[in-house]
């Protein structure tokens, strides 16, 4: 007779047990969700449109915007691939594929329920998992689709900060945590009627399209990942930061243009209604901030380094976009321009600061999404002009109320995402070693983790 220890020591059996455990957990969750099987939703949509025919245009608006946000995944994949080395491209694209695919499923299973469900104590939403029962409803599905593409955006931001050295298995675990817990809980506090939304200062903490909820969460979980992983080999020589050039500026630039385009869904779509004609102002503000971000960092780079640095210019576009994401609905064009221009400067300063601290963020995700996410939140409290939704900041006679709410939110999103992110990556490190072995890192993750490379002829054969 074999002992139990010997039995579970066998690899195939251990695999089967893991699959069985996951299946059991899923079934359990599903049955918990089905307990309250109240069929009060409107799965066909007939009743919804009969009650209000006008809703059709809003549904189309939200869905098309959501499709654009989903397309931002392509942008992230290209930016990250372009800014990193050819030997890790398959790994980077795989991470982008899996954080959307697995992330969407986890968010469907319970992430969404935690974000939008009925509020409990200001901390957590307790909704219907798996979109069953009363959630089997066109309005609910619309809301889910919108929230899901946003959750996946937050998840994919981290990929860049931990690039070229994280184990793929560790990234799978991370994806489950961020889309199932870290993102939904913070999202609930701001967008689900949680405690931040109900702060007694100004109009409560406000984050129109997610400078904080999406970008700062992604940025600071990414920072935690970069800190736990440590810098890539060769990033610091005798303590001095080195450039590790990416393999394709073309791909990076294409990715940034796709992201910019996708942002026209991200920001204007966040009105969640085509009847809010403010969408025109939001679209213009989004563009102005991106353009100003690009220009300010390009001039800064020319002044500081003597070159028109395209890589920085691309990061500047994204910095401007992230910064204007929270205030885009509440500010005038000139303010959006200013917010974006400052955003470009923040990207430049943030990247040098992180390198001075010995943190290696291969694509600049922390400066673009983290630091500018915070700046976007603060900007609401400064520049909101009171013309839309009654939101007024310090510079327009709104006093310090809104600014205080924004500062509390900014501090919270930093502590929450960096804190939970750090604990999660540490736990993963203890369980399975979060970082690949030195040999894998030097030879490239593609060959060792994925069994093949993006450009076999270019990398292996050395061009001969």
């Amino acid at each position: 007779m074999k002992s139990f220890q010997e039995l579970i020591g066998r690899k195939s059996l251990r695999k089967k047990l893991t699959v069985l455990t996951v299946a059991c957990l899923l079934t359990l969750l599903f049955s918990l969700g089905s307990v309250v099987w109240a069929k009060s939703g409107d799965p066909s949509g007939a009743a919804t449109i009969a009650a209000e025919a006008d809703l059709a245009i809003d549904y189309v608006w939200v869905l098309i915007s959501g499709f654009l946000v989903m397309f931002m995944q392509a942008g992230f994949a290209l930016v990250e691939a372009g800014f990193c080395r050819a030997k890790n491209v398959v790994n980077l694209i795989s991470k982008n594929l899996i954080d959307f695919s697995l992330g969407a499923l986890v968010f469907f299973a319970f992430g969404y329920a935690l974000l939008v469900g009925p509020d409990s104590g200001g901390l957590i939403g307790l909704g219907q998992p798996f979109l069953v029962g009363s959630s089997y409803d066109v309005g609910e599905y619309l809301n889910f689709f919108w929230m899901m593409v946003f959750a996946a955006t937050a998840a994919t931001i981290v990929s860049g900060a931990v690039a070229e050295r994280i184990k793929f298995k560790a990234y799978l675990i991370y994806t489950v945590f961020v889309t199932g817990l870290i993102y939904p809980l913070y999202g609930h506090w701001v967008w689900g009627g949680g405690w931040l939304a109900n702060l007694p200062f100004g109009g409560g903490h406000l984050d129109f399209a997610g400078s904080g909820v999406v970008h700062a969460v992604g940025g600071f979980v990414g920072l935690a990942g970069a800190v736990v992983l440590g810098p890539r080999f060769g990033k610091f020589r005798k303590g001095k930061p080195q450039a590790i050039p990416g393999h394709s500026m073309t791909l990076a630039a294409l990715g940034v243009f796709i992201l910019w385009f996708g942002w026209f869904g991200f920001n204007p779509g966040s009105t969640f209604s085509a009847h809010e004609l403010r969408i025109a102002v939001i679209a213009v503000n989004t563009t102005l901030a991106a353009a100003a971000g690009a220009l300010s960092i390009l001039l800064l780079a020319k002044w500081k380094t003597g070159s028109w640095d395209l890589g920085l210019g691309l990061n500047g576009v994204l910095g401007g976009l992230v910064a204007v994401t929270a205030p885009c609905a509440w500010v005038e064009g000139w303010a959006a321009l200013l917010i974006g221009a400052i955003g470009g400067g923040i990207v430049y300063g943030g990247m040098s600061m992180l390198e001075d601290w010995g943190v290696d963020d291969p694509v600049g995700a922390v400066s673009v999404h983290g630091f500018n996410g915070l700046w976007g939140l603060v900007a609401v409290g400064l520049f909101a002009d009171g013309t839309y939704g009654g939101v007024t900041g310090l510079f327009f006679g709104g006093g310090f109320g809104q600014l205080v709410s924004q500062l509390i939110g900014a501090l919270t999103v930093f502590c929450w995402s960096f804190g939970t992110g750090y604990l999660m990556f540490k736990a993963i490190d203890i369980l399975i070693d979060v970082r690949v072995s030195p040999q894998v890192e030097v030879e490239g993750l593609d060959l060792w983790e994925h069994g093949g490379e993006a450009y076999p002829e270019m990398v292996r054969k050395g061009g001969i």
Partner: protein
Amino acid sequence: MKKIEAIIREEKLEDVTDSLTALGYPGVTISRVKGHGKQKGVTEQFRGRKYRIDFLTKLKLEIVAEEERVEDIVETIVSQAKTGEVGDGKIFVSPVEEATRIRTFERGSKAL
């Protein structure tokens, strides 16, 4: 027999081979090589951070010819590959002991 090894700028290849063809020469082998002379590479920049490229890409032409042809060939290469700027390259000439044509087993200068 002598071997002429010429390290030249990539963009000068066509000018050099065109003139060599007009001159008439036995044949050439070309390879892409990396290295540096006194110039010691260049500095580039990636997202605000400067880095050194210590070795630049050049082309190496190898021509084996009879001794009396060498001076003409070297002069032709110099006249075509020269820009006057640092990084134009170098030419080395060295003796060759033996040559063999694989197809016919001809030896010496007949094999060129």
